[in-house]
């Protein structure tokens, strides 16, 4: 399961393509559930939510502006 192998008796390196190599064990999330809500994760997701709310409000404002609703209110 390595990229290169040394064959000592022939004093050669054997380079194996990733697609031809045997599979290796990867880091798996199986059984881990959701990410642990540390302080950093919680703050990051809150900022992201705030950002999305702000974007939604701006989009709403733009739609109302395009529809001429804001001009009527003014």
């Amino acid at each position, binding site marked *: 399961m390595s990229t290169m192998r040394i064959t000592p008796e022939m004093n050669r390196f054997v380079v194996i393509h990733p697609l031809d190599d*045997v599979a290796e064990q990867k880091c798996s999330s199986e059984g881990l559930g959701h990410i642990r809500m540390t302080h950093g994760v919680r703050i990051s997701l809150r900022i992201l939510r705030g950002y999305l709310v702000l974007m939604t409000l701006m989009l709403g*404002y733009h739609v109302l502006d395009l529809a001429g609703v804001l001009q009527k209110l003014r």
Partner: protein
Amino acid sequence: MRLAESPITVATPRGVAVKHAWQKHLLGFLMVFGPGLIVMEADNDAGAVSTYMQAGGQYGLHLLWLLIVLLPICYFVQEMVARLGIATGKGHAAMIYERFGKWWGHFSLIDLLAVNFLTLITEFAAISLALSALGVSPYISVPVSAIGLTLMVVTGSYLRWERIVIVLCLMDLAWFVLAFIVHPGWVGVARSTVHPGMPAGGITSSLIFLVIAIVGTTIAPWQLFFQQSCVAEKRLRFADLKWARLDTLIGSIFTVCVAGAMMLVGNYGYQHGIVFQDPAQFANAVLPSLGHFARNALLLLMVNAAVLGTTAISLASAWAYGEVKGWEHSLHKKLWEAPGFYATYIGCVGAAAAIVLIPHVPLQLVIISVQVFAGVILPSAIIFLQLLLNDRELLGERWVNRPWNNYINWTIIIVLFALSLLLAAQVMLPNLFQ
């Protein structure tokens, strides 16, 4: 950290025997090479050609330095993607679903699919525009391109697709030939590359918009999803990380150099007072002064950029959707072995091509929507990437970010957040900054 056996196993590894260590390193690199170059160069798509040429056309060489600033940003972001892909063997969409739950998973996926689809429409619009300038009717060029793009992926071989796309990437070397043809004045180019200068007129709303557009076009959301899926598809191993990093670095340098060449070509318009709205218009305008070769090369490079963008973006969508749905999602599979995956790819390509053929499609609205969606998705996708790269439970100490990684990446995220917000604000509230 838990280790899972990958479902794909190969009983007898085949290899290539070499005598010298340098041959081993070179061959090892060449076997891994591909995803980094493709993800970077495909980002120089039709929209990017237009943006970089406009930057040159409106501000000459003044914005060249920005590309040098963007080079490490591109590398650091995509290096994280490659590392995560190698460590988990899974795509970005699947990881967001598994670690952040369905709500964030659906949000990321739907946003990605929407922005990708709208971008595809602009790619086909560019193909139609460029080939119309060469005398080919859109009713021929667009369907033929869509069929060609489909045939590229349905061969049942990832490597075949990868080789075709690498050749397309290398065709972008022709941008350097064009840059030499337009004689930009190399001393000025060298100076502007390392020394940020203020364009005549100072900081204007249009300049800010263009700067943000350059940043947005150089780092696109689909790139995160694409490279991670590509790395998983190629089954890169832990030992391949150093080569994957080199691949990503080469891709970053190449794409920034090509982007610079596009700006130099656009700069020809700035020097000679040629005003243009799109690269095809520019190509026609320079015909009398630069000749047929330059004009045709420009138009064909525009098509190449659109084709590269289309295949990579459609695959990013198909991989992401397939991962989340739990379908077979691999280019190693035949058409009938992964029907949902291929149907997504073909559906995206076919629908975007069909929309372009509808008369009077509001392309301007599509372009604005792309900018807004990209503004929404890029910061969120990067936040998830950064959080995943700090997920010790999943990755263990070996693969998580080092403190210096985090300092750099959080800085990049804050800057991208601010720029994305500014871009979206400027697109949605055009009078805000006046």
